[in-house]
């Protein structure tokens, strides 16, 4: 319960004994992670490992069965404006009647709070963020006229407009073109160099090794967390992706039906 948010020893993100269940069926068991600032962290694991669940639970989008999560020493509700989020691209309706600028401005809403409208300064920030992802020429486009990669850049620009200290990104590289992937990686590294913490859900192992400083290997429970060169080992990957978890998932379904 320390009230000094920015001392170096306070981790950007501290997850303690986090357990999440869908309909009583656990999907994440007892996760403990502590991440310091200025790290670019990849979250990898097989399908159904609970990667998206982990970041959603951190932000309170899913109820926790047990455990707690602290950002800069504070609970989410008090640190919300310091946290940025890039949801999965498929999670929204791209026919929604807004243009690119409207979407990026949404990144300012959390800081504005209730009853205040985005003003000139917010528009200027939104423009700069669009410029960073090379989408400024598209500012007035209706979002349904964008390609997948462009949609992903718009989401990234919206997150940049949040001016957060810690970012969660859910599969930002899914279904984007090579140019967009390179542009996103460049932006992520720039953020990291500014001392921000970035957690990225990622499903491609070869690029995971290239892109991230640290890796969280996840498969319903935390397999390993550490520097990429330390945890990217055949043994740990086998533990993450291999078929040794059948017992755990069977117990999970048993728990789901028993309760």
């Amino acid at each position, binding site marked *: 319960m320390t009230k000094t948010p920015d001392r170096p020893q306070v981790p950007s993100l501290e997850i303690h004994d986090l357990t999440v269940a869908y309909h009583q069926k656990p999907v994440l068991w007892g996760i403990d992670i502590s991440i310091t600032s200025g790290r670019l962290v990849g979250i990898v694991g097989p399908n159904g490992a609970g990667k998206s669940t982990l970041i959603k639970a951190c932000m309170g*989008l899913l109820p926790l069965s047990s455990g707690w999560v602290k950002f800069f020493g504070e609970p989410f509700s008090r640190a*919300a404006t310091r946290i940025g989020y890039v949801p999965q691209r498929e999670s929204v309706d791209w026919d929604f*009647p807004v243009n690119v600028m409207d979407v990026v401005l949404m990144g300012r809403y959390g800081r504005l709070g209730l009853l205040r409208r*985005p003003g000139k300064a917010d528009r200027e920030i939104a423009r700069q963020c669009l410029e960073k992802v090379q989408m400024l020429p598209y500012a007035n486009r209706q979002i349904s006229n964008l390609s997948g990669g462009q949609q992903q850049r718009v989401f990234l620009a919206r997150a940049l407009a*949040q001016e957060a200290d810690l970012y969660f990104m859910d599969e930002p590289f899914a279904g984007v073109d090579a140019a967009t992937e390179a542009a996103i990686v460049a932006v992520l590294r720039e953020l990291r160099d500014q001392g921000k913490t970035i957690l990225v859900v990622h499903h491609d192992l070869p690029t995971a090794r290239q892109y991230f400083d640290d890796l969280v290997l996840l498969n319903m429970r935390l397999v390993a967390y550490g520097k990429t060169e330390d945890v990217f080992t055949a043994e740990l990957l086998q533990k993450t992706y291999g078929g040794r978890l059948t017992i755990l998932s069977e117990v999970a379904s048993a728990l789901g039906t028993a309760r």
Partner: protein
Amino acid sequence: MVSKKQLRFIFGWLALLIAPVALHAAQVSDVVETDLVEQLARFFSMRDPSLRFALIGSILLGISCGLLGGFIVVRKMALMGDALSHAVLPGVAGGFLWNMEKDPVAILVGATIAGLLGSAMVSALTRTTRIKEDAALGLVLASFFAAGLCLQTMIIQNLPSGTQSGLDKFMFGQAAALGWDDVALMSAVTLLAVVMVALFYKELLVTSFDEGFARASGLPVRWVHHGLMLLLAMSVVIALKAVGVVLVSAMLITPAAAAYLLTDRLHRLLTLAVVFGVLAASVGAFFSFVGKNLPTGPLMVLGASTVFLGAFLFGPRYGVLSKWWARRSRSGRTQRENTLKAIYHVWENEGAALEGVSLKALAEKRRATLEEIGREVNSLERHGLATVNGPMVYFTPAGRQRSAEIVRNHRLWELYLTNSANIAPDHVHDDAENIEHVLGEDVVRELERRLGYATHDPHGKAIPSVQDVHQNAGLTGEAGKRGGA
């Protein structure tokens, strides 16, 4: 699907049960029997206070329904609006039972509570059981509606003045039955809706577009949702007396759906939805007043549907006619470009020294009659792409350039498919036939670069180079002189 079937079944019985009462009750013009001209004069002079109330009430309900309907449509909650409007019925009867008179405030409170209870039951059912939202909506809607019908029938039967209680008006609506207190309440609710939407527009926008992001930004997503549901329930209730339970959801959905076809920005969508709502509601009130035996609610909904039909057909971007027109002009262009290409091919085959191409050779190449070819080259002439002189046709400079571009696109694409996609040379022609008309300049540059500025296509034909396309003299110069002469 289940819910729709249930609905139809219930409506069938309902119509049999209450149609006679409702049709009788829903005559706006039962005030005085007059002829059409006099009715029109009465409508536009606004002498009747009841007519004034009817019109003001209709406009107010158009505003509130249009505004909130916009959110319902973009949040994909249209069915929820329908369920809500049926779920309020027991509350209407309950509000009446409160003090046994038509107190609009008691009815508003009762109906709003019933409506919110209904929507809460839908979300409880979907959360706690394996029943999905559509079935839950159908189930709750039908149960509440049935309960409301029973309550209402009991009240009407047990009161000596039952038919005068006005409860029957809530089924199909009667704008002429609106009184001063109804209109006052409608103004209050509409004002509340407009103010709340203006104040919380940004929260409504972000929660409608991306709920997860809104919650991650620390915005009170639950409260926004509940507030919207409350406003929705209240505006459904104030609209009930004019439109009726059965059709009120149409006044939420239809104007907003029409607006959705016309614009790509939410604030414009809401404005248009309000305009359409007001238009439909006042047109409904007008016709129901002029045509003596016509009920208000259905007329308003027909008005809204007409607006929707207009947007569906004539919307500049998503309208059916506009799309058809765009397709037509595209196919006309494709046709002209194919003719240009054929002229190029003939010219290429017969030797580049040739000044023009004979219509006969062209007809053979296109496997068409001379008349058809005549029509095609006339179309080229109208668009300034070629000139016709007796039996010969000549390119204009623009036509020459476009034809070379088309041929180049075709051959580049064939080469690309053969070289880079490993498709057999005899399979690539049909694909290139379509692609040649849509390849953009930058894609062509990229293709040229990737193919190492190749000069010949897989069939050994020369690919017109950039020079051929842009600095062409030869045929063009001659044709230009001939055309000019």
